[in-house]
């Protein structure tokens, strides 16, 4: 019965025949200040898609152009603010990030491409935001930065920007990374909220479709923190929380175990895409 009806729907859809305006990611290539950016590549083994696509390929020509040029990219102001923080002494030990790590363009290169990583101390994956807090509290005698406040987004953007163009690749063999990946996968496919939708409903099943005015991408994370034209600099866990809120569910806390697992899993789903931080999105 269900089968039969579904066939009816498919038939109806093809009779209606109104082809979607932009069904697929655009064909376009990205270079940022001469640096080639991989926005489309073969998916890793075990991935539901054959090809992974950057969210950049789903945005309008104007939005794409803003990201091509670091002078035009409004997110670069945040990166500069992050650089100033990098060199600012914080906490009772009289140290800045630069006191230990010196030139970020050398010491932080690759960090944005390989986090989250296994953190043996906490027995959990750690992301860049939490690594910053670990340094602040354990090395610098400072308070941790609260979620999305006091420059957390800017400093994270500065650090990830040092990996611009590098392919995302996680090491899932470290510690228990694999079991956090498994848990993240569960979260990704779990339907939430009154609207009863999972991440996969929008970013896998309906990828490439229009949901009202929005062109649904694969929901990749390689450009975070991202500059959103309507909201400014947006952190990854803020984006996760926003998508979950839109299903009319309670929002999990930033850096909660569920969201750390989700970050691990979704980062893997973008394996091979270049780091684009700070990407520009609508």
């Amino acid at each position, binding site marked *: 019965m269900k089968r039969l009806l579904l066939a009816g729907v498919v038939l109806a*859809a093809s009779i209606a025949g109104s082809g979607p305006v932009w069904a697929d990611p655009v064909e376009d290539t990205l270079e940022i200040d001469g640096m080639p950016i991989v926005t489309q590549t073969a998916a890793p083994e075990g991935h539901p898609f054959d090809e992974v696509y950057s969210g950049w390929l789903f945005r309008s020509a104007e939005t794409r152009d803003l990201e091509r040029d670091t002078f035009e990219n409004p997110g670069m102001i945040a990166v500069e603010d992050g650089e100033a923080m990098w060199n600012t002494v914080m906490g009772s030990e009289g140290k800045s990030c630069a006191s230990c790590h010196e030139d970020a363009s050398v010491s932080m290169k690759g960090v944005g491409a390989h986090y989250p990583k296994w953190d043996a101390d906490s027995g959990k994956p750690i992301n860049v935001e939490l690594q910053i807090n670990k340094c602040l509290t354990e090395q610098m005698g400072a308070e941790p930065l609260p979620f999305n406040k006091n420059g957390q987004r800017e400093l994270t953007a500065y650090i990830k920007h040092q990996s611009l163009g590098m392919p995302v690749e996680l090491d899932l063999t470290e510690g228990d990374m694999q079991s956090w990946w498994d848990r993240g996968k569960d979260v990704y496919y779990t339907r939430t909220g009154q609207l009863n939708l999972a991440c996969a409903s929008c970013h896998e099943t309906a990828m490439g479709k229009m949901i*009202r*005015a929005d062109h649904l991408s694969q929901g990749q994370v390689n450009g975070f923190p991202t500059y959103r034209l309507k909201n400014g600099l947006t952190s990854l866990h803020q984006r996760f929380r926003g998508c979950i809120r839109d299903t009319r569910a309670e929002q999990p806390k930033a850096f909660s175990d569920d969201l750390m697992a989700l970050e691990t899993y979704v980062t893997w789903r973008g394996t091979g895409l270049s780091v684009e931080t700070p990407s520009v999105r609508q």
Partner: protein
Amino acid sequence: MTRRIKFTLGAIAAVVLSTAAFASEVAPDAVEYGDEGVMTSLTGVAGDPAAGAETFKSRKLGNCLACHANPDMAGEQFHGDVGPSLEGVADRWEEPMLRAIVANSKQIFTDETIMPGFYSLEVGKHVRESLVGETILTAQQVEDVVAYLGTLKE
């Protein structure tokens, strides 16, 4: 004193009225889905197609345009294409099937469908606290939307 009595009487009248409205309303978990769809009205009150069109458009209510193109609403910006176009949908489905699709499409398509159940308590995890036990649309709003869909003929 008189004021108080009036108020109380008014309140009683209101309670009686709303109970009357509820008496003939089918609860979300009591809706019967058969091979032809849902045969009986959820409220016993005929749907109003004009109200249904508003519910269909409204981002706060049906937000049906988020996923469906609808040439009958060409004046509205941004029609989605997550689901099929609803052009001529009333030529494809009878009223009981339209009612079933809107009330809980998972009963009609598959459990995997993206389309939310608008009069169903089969929902996802961690539903926002203020919405627990609530359906997306009321029974009458479903009837109104179904009446509106019934006007979409080629």
